């Protein structure tokens, strides 16, 4: 592959941004890129990024599928809060918070609740026919209320070794959180690319009415992606609450939906639905996580954090845009963009 072709790849600029952020961080703090072995675990900046990006990646994976069907799910943050609240309040109330069985039971309950939220969202979108952004806005607001209801508005703190493992543990020298995310990523990739689910999701996203006429169960598929999205958000909620060993209903996953959508789009999936790229989402998640981390490492002044974030995002988006991509090709040509049809 020649250099030009690489530069034209959809993920080229996000990857460049990723590398630049890493290099800048490493220049500021030379130890940053070192990976060392300590107590049999890997330590260091890159490992840290992997561990930290797990939450965003999980949420963004679900979001990718939802977006591929032309939807959007604003309730992911609330689902994370609910997951943490249900799991931790159950663990806190149990006589033996440290027992594996307690933790598993609590997680199962939380997952059930999260799935119920997903079913609810999917029902509103696929059956009642409410526009996704509003349908999920309902749970974005109410869900956090429910989470706070469960914890009584307090931050529920627990001490439970098995639960702590989720975010802080290591297995085979790698962070458990990253392994969970990698596992879910793998499962999603298998599910969408080894079965026909992926192509059916895309077809529903590109042209819902044609898909229906082609015999695709559009409604079921749309419903399913919201459930999957809620399930992934729930797992992300476990990691987030395990990270601080507390259920912070008000703040867990606050505004993560925006980061997730950003990750999905930087990864090359269009918000208009259709073709999606899980690898792209992975790269997008890494970019955003690294961006957040580098803010601290580079010592960006507090008042300029938002500006810094905006400039990086704008730079990546501009460079990635079809127009700039065209400009950079040696052979320039103007083709009217093929707009995605939106039936009214």
């Amino acid at each position, binding site marked *: 592959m020649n250099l030009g072709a690489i530069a034209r790849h959809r993920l080229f600029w996000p990857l460049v941004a990723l590398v630049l952020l890493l290099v800048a961080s490493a220049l500021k703090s030379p130890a940053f890129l070192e990976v060392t072995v300590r107590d049999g675990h890997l330590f260091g900046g890159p490992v840290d990024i992997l561990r930290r990006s797990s939450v965003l990646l999980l949420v963004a994976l679900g979001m990718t599928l939802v977006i591929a069907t032309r939807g959007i799910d604003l309730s992911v943050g609330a689902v994370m809060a609910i997951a943490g609240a249900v799991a931790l309040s159950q663990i806190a109330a149990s006589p033996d918070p440290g027992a594996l069985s307690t933790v598993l039971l609590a997680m199962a309950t939380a997952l059930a609740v999260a799935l119920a939220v997903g079913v609810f969202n999917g029902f509103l979108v696929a059956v009642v026919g409410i526009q996704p952004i509003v349908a999920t806005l309902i749970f974005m607001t109410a869900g956090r209320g429910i989470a706070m209801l469960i914890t009584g508005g307090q931050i529920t703190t627990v001490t439970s070794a098995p639960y702590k493992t989720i975010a802080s543990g290591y297995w085979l020298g790698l962070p458990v959180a990253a392994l969970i995310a990698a596992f879910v990523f793998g499962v999603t990739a298998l599910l969408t690319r080894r079965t026909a689910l992926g192509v059916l999701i895309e077809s529903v996203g590109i042209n819902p009415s044609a898909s229906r006429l082609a*015999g695709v169960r559009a409604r079921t598929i749309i419903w399913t992606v919201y459930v999957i999205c809620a399930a992934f958000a729930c797992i992300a909620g476990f990691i987030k609450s395990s990270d601080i060993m507390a259920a912070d209903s008000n703040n867990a996953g606050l505004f993560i939906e925006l980061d997730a959508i950003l990750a999905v789009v930087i990864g090359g999936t269009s918000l208009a639905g259709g073709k999606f790229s899980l690898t792209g989402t992975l790269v997008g998640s890494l970019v955003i996580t690294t961006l957040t981390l580098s803010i601290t490492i580079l010592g960006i002044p507090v008042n300029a954090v938002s500006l810094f974030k905006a400039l990086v995002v704008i730079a990546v988006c501009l460079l990635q845009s079809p127009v700039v991509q065209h400009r950079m090709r040696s052979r320039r040509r103007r083709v009217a963009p093929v707009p995605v049809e939106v039936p009214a």
Partner: protein
Amino acid sequence: MTTSPTAIPPDQPDQPGEPDRPDARDREPVVAMTGITVTFPGVKALDGVDLRLFPGEVHALMGENGAGKSTLIKALTGVYAVDAGTIVVDGTARTFAGPAQAQAAGISTVYQEVNLCDNLSVAENVMLGHEVRRAGLVDFRGTRRAAREHLRALNLDIDPASTLSSHSLAVQQLVAICRAMVVDARVLILDEPTSSLDVDEVERLFAVVRDLRGRGVAILFVSHFLEQVYAISDRMTVLRNGTLVGEYRTADLPRVELVQKMIGRSLEVLEQLEEAPKRVAAERGVQPYVQALGLGRKGSIEPFDLDVYPGEVVGLAGLLGSGRTELARLLYGADRSDVGELRVEGQPTRLRTPRAALARRIVYSSESRKTEGIIGDLTVRENIVLGLQAERGWLRRIPQRKADEVVAQYVEQLGIRPADPDAIAGNLSGGNQQKVLLARWLATQPRLLLLDEPTRGIDVGAKAEIQRLVAELAEQGMAVVFISAELEEVLRLSHRIAVMRDRRKIGELVNGDDVTTDDVVDLIASGGQDA
């Protein structure tokens, strides 16, 4: 006459100096495109093509599906940028940045796929950008009045205030044509305007076109109906595979030669086309595959009875908006019936979704391939196996090998071009998209095939191919419902013809050698009293 299938015959384009119409010689072409080349990633859609349009002339642009006709039009109107070549309008070289600029230069275009906004009213679609205004503000009453007049010119008596989406595709096509006439254009481009119109509408359109020609407008006309081309055009340019074959005066080019130039093959295909596909009499007495008993849907179609037997082709005849599409959609479960009963192989069945119909081996190929057929961003392969896949469910993916086999078979059989399973379906030419859609349904090996305008926008060769295919499938025992605006085609293929009018089935004819289009037209006109 023998020419190799690949090489372009060295025809001499006629000399522009030669007088064809009395006053053409002293006129400069209003549009002259020379050496136009347009490439898409991986495809050279046009390669050094010339086109000249003269005022007061109808110029036909001919070629097979995918020959590059639409691309040439889009290159002219600035939708696509050209890689090479020049466009001269009124003696000055121009490059349009988009349709808006082309329009400003007096070039008005009706593109192949209906490109209107179906959320707006008919009046607005006709008048957008040219609304009647008073004190800077849009005067809706005046706009509607103006729109109604333009619609009348095409004999289209619809309420200008109704939303566009409430009308059938054919009406939408007429509205699109209307829109192109609103501007006082000096060049009018019509890319397959007649593909879903019936005889009357076409006549009406031609009357308008002749009138415009008389007023000195240059008209570019694309159609796969040879009769129409011969009826209206003065001159034609033939394209093949993105290259120019030549420019001819219509009068000088017999049909046989034209087809030969278009497809670069001998006369075989044309002969096939002329020859009626064999209709094998249905084995009556067998149970009908599908039986509709008083099936209907309020506001869309009155209750009707219809039997379709295996091995039988049932044609649906009727004028625009007579409810043929609605009937087919009820049989497919695309719309839910609210009265009556549907029996599949004698079993009362309720089809709530297309998927349920699919499970009973009933399939429907929609007339509007753009909104209800092709999944634009998916590949040809994915589009073709979509029906099969939907039937199998999401879990059991069709193995790559099987998919490739199926796709290869139909790409070959239907002559889908480019023959690349990984091409994005939305980028195919209109006719080829139609073939892909057909392939999708044939691949599911249905028992009942509902075809709504399957030959819309398909070139002569492919059309013959499809007709033969339908006859063949029926012979093998498939039940087919065939809808087409082209009455001859319906007559040629069907064993039985159900006649529709005003959303009602008014009668049925058993087809035979003695049945002619006039019989059908009479039946429609009489409203079924004598049926």
